[in-house]
């Protein structure tokens, strides 16, 4: 019975969301699109940081890389946006390979700080290669109203990231990642090729943000370095995952929905207080409920690990 509910509920929600643009206003579609985007970002961060235990402080770099790769292909090469979005994901994965290979071979905080710097570096590079990226002036895309198709593609990407997380958590690969998170030395002693597993998890976690970045660039029609590489985006995805429950399937989804709605309804009125609250929330969650909301529920109600 409960298994049927567990399967039927997400399917029903997905169907309702698929039909939603028919009845919803432009604003509502856009807001839901944003939630999808946050699910993609938070879910992807969860793969490397929540599951594998390697904190990425610069995950928005992949969003920005995807946005620029996609926007350049659309505006300079005339590609259709769907293909450009896929290549945007590919570009982010490539970037992750270049950064991850040296940084993930080591234990400890090297990776975290390297990711902290990556964002600044990409922003500087984008500003420098003005011919291709428009530099600080930004890059305008040809006008096209594709919000509804982008809504579906972003929604599908969100579903894909969540399903991928489920598949990983229930697989041997996922168990190995969690072993690395709990005790890397022990993982190595058991014969897990930790460097390779960390790298795979990292590559998987870069694809979603890359695609989301390219889709967002197409939807907004204009990008500039400040708009696609903000540290605030990384902060938000981290807070969403920590709040919802890191290392779980539904934690990032829960965090994305709850915090996005809270942000729209309450905190939008206090633009400076809200990042301050996010900082405080991170501290509070780390100290008081390190497993997040879902983690607490899992323990209290003995829910399965695969939630």
């Amino acid at each position, binding site marked *: 019975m409960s298994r049927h509910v567990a399967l039927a509920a997400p399917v029903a929600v997905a169907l309702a969301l698929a039909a939603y643009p028919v009845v919803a206003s432009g604003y509502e579609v856009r807001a839901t699109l944003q939630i999808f985007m946050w699910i993609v970002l938070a879910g992807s961060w969860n793969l490397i940081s929540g599951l594998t235990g390697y904190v990425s*402080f610069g995950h928005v770099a992949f969003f920005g890389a995807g946005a620029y790769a996609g926007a350049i292909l659309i505006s300079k090469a005339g590609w259709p946006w769907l293909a450009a979005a896929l290549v945007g994901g590919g570009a982010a994965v490539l970037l992750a390979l270049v950064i991850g290979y*040296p940084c993930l071979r080591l234990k400890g905080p090297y990776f975290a700080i390297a990711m*902290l710097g990556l964002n*600044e570096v990409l922003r*500087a590079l984008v500003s420098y290669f003005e011919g291709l990226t428009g530099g600080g002036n930004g890059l305008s895309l040809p006008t096209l109203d594709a919000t509804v198709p982008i809504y579906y593609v972003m929604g599908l990407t969100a579903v894909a990231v969540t399903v991928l997380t489920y598949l990983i958590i229930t697989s041997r690969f996922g168990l190995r990642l969690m072993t690395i998170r709990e005790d890397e030395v022990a993982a190595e002693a058991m014969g897990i090729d930790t460097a390779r597993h960390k790298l795979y998890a990292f590559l998987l976690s870069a694809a979603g943000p890359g695609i989301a970045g390219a889709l967002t660039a197409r939807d907004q029609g204009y990008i500039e370095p400040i708009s696609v590489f903000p540290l605030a985006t990384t902060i938000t995805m981290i807070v969403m995952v920590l709040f919802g429950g890191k290392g779980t399937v539904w934690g990032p989804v829960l965090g994305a929905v709850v915090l996005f709605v809270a942000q729209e309804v309450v905190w939008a009125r206090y633009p400076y207080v809200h990042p301050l609250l996010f900082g405080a929330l991170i501290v509070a969650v*780390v100290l008081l409920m390190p497993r997040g909301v879902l983690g607490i529920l899992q323990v209290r109600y003995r829910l399965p690990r695969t939630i």
Partner: protein
Amino acid sequence: MNVVVTPAMLGQVVISGILSGALYAMVALGLALIFGVMRIINVAHGPLLMLGAYATYFLSTAVSMAMLFVVGVLLERTLVFRVVDAPELSSLLLTFGVSIALVNLAQLLFTSDLRSVEYLTGAWVVGPFALSKSRVVAFVFAGALTGLAFLFLGRTKLGKAIRATSQSREVAMVCGIDVQRIHLVTFGLAAALAAAGGALIAVIVAIQPEMGQIWTFKSFLVIVLGGAGNYPGALLGGILLGLIEQVASLFLTTQLSEVVAYVLLVAILLVRPTGLLGGRQT
């Protein structure tokens, strides 16, 4: 870009590199101390430096260092001590949260306006070289403070206790060192070094709430260059980073100097992950 490099230009670059290198070394020493003693990378190191810069702007350098020492101690006492033995994830996330809170608090209190301390402007001309007055003062100050810090670590009982704790916490405890207290002092000292850095930077460039993050990164780069947990390594790493950035600015635009620093980090992690002097000899 086609540049003809004259010996005078090269000399100028080397001088500027060493001048800013001393500052890097001092700020990075704070990060290295915390990492050595507590095995924590304090992501809030840069934002603490930013607070120090503001304290200098409104009050004075000495007050700023004293205040930040207290802030550091309070931070350790209330939050950081809870994650000393926790997995890295916790301490990184916790200090990251603190750093975001600090930056936005500063934005609320001081707004995002650029502010600068007009202290010494202009330059001394020595032969073919021009020495920016504020940078020379910063260099002398940073050099003196770093020297004092090394004297403190090398000669005083408390300094020796700090080094002992960073070599082995258990053995230090067995020898009767109050490790909790060492953690407190180390955190306060590191925050004070960051504050001194902020004070000196405030003299050189305009300050704003988001100036800090890049300093966390640069300090980390310095300790990677020198070897994490190796205190003299921080000195060497700082000077090296200063030189490399300046030489790079000769051939590339200044926009790309951060990129050069980054490529350097990745290259070192690839080739010599223990740093140039090797890790953990204090």
